[in-house]
């Protein structure tokens, strides 16, 4: 009886050791992937610092664009943090995949398949915010120079119009509730256009008529002297 028990124990121990021997390299591989991920993040942040990415972002208006969106961190910090998480997750999934567990089988290929959508969505979002702020600023300055009283309102309309449009594009790109997004966007956008049409058609008909007449007849409230 005791021999049987002894053999069973030894067999179980052997089995466990065999499994451990098989699992250990996979665990080591996962740890190595995580370490490499950390190193890649550090390297990326160092490169961003060397190429003065922060200054570039300020010049391109990205920093102020984010500040307007309520994001107070520096752009290089954000990119560093974002890249770390991308690299970390990438390597973490590689590590988990390396464990060869049945529950996580094909996890990596599924994530890699979705990655292009995420990257495209990020790019679309970034460009959309830049375009929104650029256009909003252009409209604001032009309206102020034309001495239009609702300059800020016009600029905000343009900015938020583009931001909403961008948001819809990002969600569609990510495949999140496509149908709802398209329907909601169409309703909001169509609603705004209809509201404006009604506002101009009923409320501002006379003003629009006068403005058009002035424009077509090239009548301008000019200064009494030339500036150049």
């Amino acid at each position, binding site marked *: 009886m005791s021999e049987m028990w002894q053999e069973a124990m030894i067999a179980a121990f052997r089995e466990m050791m065999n499994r451990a021997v098989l699992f250990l390299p996979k665990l080591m591989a996962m740890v190595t992937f995580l370490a490499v991920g950390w190193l890649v993040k550090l390297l990326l942040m160092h490169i961003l610092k060397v190429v003065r990415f922060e200054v570039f972002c*300020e*010049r391109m*208006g990205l920093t*102020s664009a984010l500040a307007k969106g309520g994001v107070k961190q520096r752009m290089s910090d954000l990119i560093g943090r974002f890249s770390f998480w991308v690299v970390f997750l990438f390597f973490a999934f590689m590590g988990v995949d390396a464990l060869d567990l049945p529950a996580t089988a094909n996890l990596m290929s599924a994530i890699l398949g979705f990655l292009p959508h995420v990257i495209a969505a990020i790019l679309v979002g970034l460009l959309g915010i830049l375009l929104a702020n*650029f256009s909003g*600023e*252009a409209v*604001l*300055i*032009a*309206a*102020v*120079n034309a*001495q239009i*009283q609702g*300059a*800020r309102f016009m600029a905000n309309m343009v900015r938020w119009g583009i931001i909403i449009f961008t948001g819809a594009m990002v969600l569609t790109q990510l495949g999140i509730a496509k149908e709802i997004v398209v329907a909601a966007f169409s309703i909001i956008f169509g609603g705004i256009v209809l509201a404006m049409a009604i506002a101009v058609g009923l409320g501002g008909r006379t003003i629009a008529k006068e403005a058009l007449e002035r424009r077509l007849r090239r009548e*301008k*409230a*000019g*200064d*009494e*002297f*030339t*500036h*150049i």
Partner: protein
Amino acid sequence: MEDAVWKAVQEQCPDAHQVDLLIALPSFNHASTIGSVLKAILAGLNASFANASILIVNADVGSQDGTPDIVKQTVGALVPVAVIQPLGEGSSASPFALNRLSYSGMPGREEAFKSFFVLTQRLQAKACAVIDANMRSVTAEWMSLLVKPVLESGADYVAPVFRRPRYEGSLTNNLIAPLTRSLYGKRVGCQVGGGYGFSPKMASTLFQKKFLWEGEAARFAIDSWLTTVAVAEGFQVWQARLGAKVQDHKAGAADVATSLVQAVGASYHYMEHYQDVWEKPTGSSAVPEVGKPMETEVEATPIHVERMMKGFRQGLRDLLPIWEVILAPETLAGVLALGLKDDEDFRYPLALWVQTVYDFAVAYHEKVIHREHLLRSLMPLYLGRTSSVVLETRGGGPEMVQHTVEQGCQTFEAMKPYLVDRWRFQ
């Protein structure tokens, strides 16, 4: 482009291989004025340069009113004449450039000037005079005033100066000319359009230096940057007092903001190219002038500042987030304080104005925001300063305005170290 222009001239004037004078007229639908301009030119050439070999070149950018035909009919066989198309046969201006005309209102003006410089070089002309085809006040005397300094006194560039009512050319007097004077040390009026005189040296330099023609500022504002480049390159600059300036298209009246963007943008643009030149000089010297002394006139209609004040106050209300990025904190504080004053007591102090212009120059250099947005956002501040000048001087005569402009120039010079420091160490 050079070969096409040269070929066109050779086809029309096979004997023109070398001339003494090149008289150039850029034109675009100027049938109503070009005849009288040419008659004045011909009279001037006959009176002052009867023995010189001359070629008249009309660079027409696609007139639909028969302007080139009028040129040929008016000149006839008196002087060889050639009509060229600076943009080339069958081509047209870029559709994106249609709203970006020089404030002369003429498309392709920069290409026309480039063609004139090429021809001056190829024809080995001793001088080139460019006269605008839309001028109604050209007299025979203009030829002598624009050309003789080049032929007889070694001038490289003869810039026009006109007799104007005291507040005319407010942007030029309160910003462009003082800035140019403080940067490059030459007291030039920086007035634009009408007529210019060039030496072959200046023409070939302008043509050969490709960087001069590159960039948004260079492409649409040749009238603005000719004087800047001439003083920055160290050419002998003269000024010709040409009398009154009466033209068909009232420059700057259509869109002040665009004129400001072009004129100020050109000044800031070339500050980057000529940093080594302008960082050094201190003080300024006058440039030689020809022509009869001119009196500044009092304006025919009173100037109302209400609209300009309104523009300034709206800028203060709506553009503050943009100015916060552009202006130094002490400048911004000064500008904000202006909003508290009543219209009648409103004064935009000179030192604050100079600081504003210099802060915008630094911000342009640093590209803190898109450059066109930056320049356009200067507009309300400029209106504020112009209102202030009118309010300060309207009780006095033209001399008082001239005195204020001179004070402005001196303040620009005195505060130049502020610009240099910020430019270098921002």
